[in-house]
């Protein structure tokens, strides 16, 4: 999500608890006061939000599923226009919703931060929700006399940079929509950052947050976006000024990334960082962004490209083709460029040396 010029207006924090031993939910502890951060603390808080939801973050876009008044999307739609008194009360309703959604005893408690403000070039509204789990750590202490340091144990730490310890959701007002809206998806873009979403088989663990709590679901456009990513990455690799052999490796990598990897999300930066050098990484992420694809992660759905991913094809100028199942291509086919005989002008032409680690069983 592009989040330039993000400002934070109101922040209020409530406590949520783990269910007790009998599985009974404990009501959240309500705060009545807004949190006022000092300059540096506010800057760090903003950095956390940008890192969770901003450009090249791991956040994925979600779709609003539950439009009814009692669900979070409707509450968000109302709360952003409320005055401070009502906002404080409504934010507690959000905390109650989270408590309801945390139906398993395995889900830890923590705090819920509800905040709003403006973002973007045309300064639209947004509402953010962070659920942060409490963890422990150490604080540095300096002995004033000796200047030596020691560590003091801190049992309850919150909002440290490790993104595994908090989940973030952002409802961003769209820039330009027709009124009246036919549904909340017309007005709001929902971004959810939750490390469990991108993990293989992580959707189930993450479901309580994005679905039960936020009333959202995976976007129906994932298959189309995945296909666009595939096409855009292909054209990028093809345009690189590298040898055909190197391109073959990259096409193999792209196929593996989309077909074999168990992660349920795709991210241009993740792919780039794994397979390209630093300067090409920057060019790739810019290329993907310019193709109109999300600058964050997005949910993977290979439905539209499944058949393409099954086969790897290499085509030569003279219409010779090599077609192979992508599963075994890398293992059984070695393709290398080599220097061929000189052409009429005396310049050696490029030939290709192909080794197929198998024997021929049929030919026409």
């Amino acid at each position, binding site marked *: 999500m592009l989040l330039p*010029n993000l400002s934070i207006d109101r922040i209020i924090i409530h406590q949520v608890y783990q269910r007790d031993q009998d599985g009974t939910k404990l009501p959240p502890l309500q705060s009545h006061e807004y949190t006022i951060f000092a300059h540096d603390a506010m800057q760090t808080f903003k950095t956390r939000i940008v*890192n969770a939801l901003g450009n090249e973050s791991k956040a994925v876009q979600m779709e609003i599923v539950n439009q009814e008044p009692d669900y979070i999307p409707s509450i968000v739609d109302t709360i952003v226009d409320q005055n401070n008194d009502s906002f404080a009360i409504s934010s507690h309703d959000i905390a109650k919703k989270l408590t309801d959604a945390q139906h398993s005893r395995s889900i830890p408690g923590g705090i819920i931060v509800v905040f709003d403000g403006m973002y973007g*070039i045309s300064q639209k509204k947004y509402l953010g929700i962070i659920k942060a789990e409490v963890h422990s750590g150490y604080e540095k202490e300096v002995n004033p006399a000796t200047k030596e340091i020691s560590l003091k144990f801190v049992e309850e730490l919150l909002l440290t940079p490790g993104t595994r310890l908090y989940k973030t959701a952002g409802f961003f007002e769209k820039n330009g929509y027709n009124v009246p809206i036919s549904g909340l998806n017309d007005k709001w873009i929902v971004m959810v950052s939750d490390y469990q979403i991108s993990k293989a088989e992580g959707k189930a663990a993450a479901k309580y947050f994005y679905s039960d709590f936020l009333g959202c679901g995976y976007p129906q456009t994932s298959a189309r976006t995945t296909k666009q990513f595939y096409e855009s990455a292909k054209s990028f690799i093809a345009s690189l000024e590298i040898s055909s052999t190197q391109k073959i490796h990259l096409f193999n990598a792209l196929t593996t990334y989309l077909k074999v990897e168990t992660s349920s999300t795709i991210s241009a*930066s993740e792919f780039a960082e794994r397979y390209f050098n*630093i*300067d090409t990484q920057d060019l790739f992420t810019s290329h993907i962004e310019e193709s109109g694809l999300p600058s964050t992660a997005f949910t993977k759905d290979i439905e539209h490209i499944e058949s393409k991913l099954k086969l790897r094809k290499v085509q030569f100028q003279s219409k010779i083709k090599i077609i192979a199942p992508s599963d075994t291509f890398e293992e059984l086919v070695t393709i290398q460029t080599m220097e061929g005989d000189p052409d009429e002008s005396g310049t050696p032409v490029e030939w290709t040396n192909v080794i197929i680690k198998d024997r021929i069983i049929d030919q026409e």
Partner: protein
Amino acid sequence: MNEAEFKEIWESDKPVYDAWGHYILKTVTEALEKRGKDLDVFLKVPAKCRLKDDKSLIDKAFYRDGKKYSDPYNEIEDKVGIRFIVLLIDDIHEIYKIIEDHEDWDFTTCKHFEEDRKRDPLLFTYQSVHCILRPNKDIVYEGINIHRSTPCEVQIRTLLQHAHAELTHDAIYKSKRAVQPKVHRTVAKSMALIETTDDFFRDVTNLLNYGPLEEHKILEKLNGIYSRNTEIESHTQKASIIIWDEFEQFIDEHLVDNIQAMLSEYAFLSETIKKRYNDSVLYQQSTVFFVYWMLKNRKRRLLEDWPLPRGILELLAGDLGINISDV
């Protein structure tokens, strides 16, 4: 005009010549400062305006061997003089250009070492630039009327040329005695050496100071953009130089246009810079635009090679809404 009349006119004209000299000195030094020169550094000897002393003026007008003036008072043009002494040949050109371009005077160049070299390529002798400046209309400076016929001689030379002149001026150029050929030869040898050294100085300075940043006038252009957008002057400091050094490969003729395009999209950045002016020195320098551009377009290279503490990048990335925690 006899000697007594000469003295009398000179005595009454002195304040006029002095005013004209001071006017030129002020005009040229102000122009240098406007170009960002620190005079204490740029001028290797403080520039002063000096009236010729009576004795040597009379001497020149009436007793000098070899040169007879028909109208000595008007023909002697160095009754007042200013000397600028700089480190490099290119610095001479800079002052010469200021004099050449100024509208308040007419000037003639009566000596220019580069012309001398062309005319007498085999000769190694006294090198300097001498110009004679006269007001192109009568002017009033500090209450004194300066007539348009008033000349002032401006000399411009490098420190090494000056050293040569100091050694030889009285001993040889003005000497009334015949000088030994060996002395001439040695002085000519030292001039050849000085000319060579001045060339080397220029080469070194060019190598040190001239790169793509200068070639494309990046800092000048960004400073302009910075002051237009924020209404604050940019202060280029060491931090900027370190950053440009590290990311020189991204400097090309399109860079400023690309940064401009980013700024027209993200117009709020100017306000952000003003708001954050005291959060980091980088916000006070126009190089901040380049770092924003890098964050948007070459984030990973920027983070990989960033030569300063990373905290500042987190601030800037936050302004743009870009996550840099995973890189």
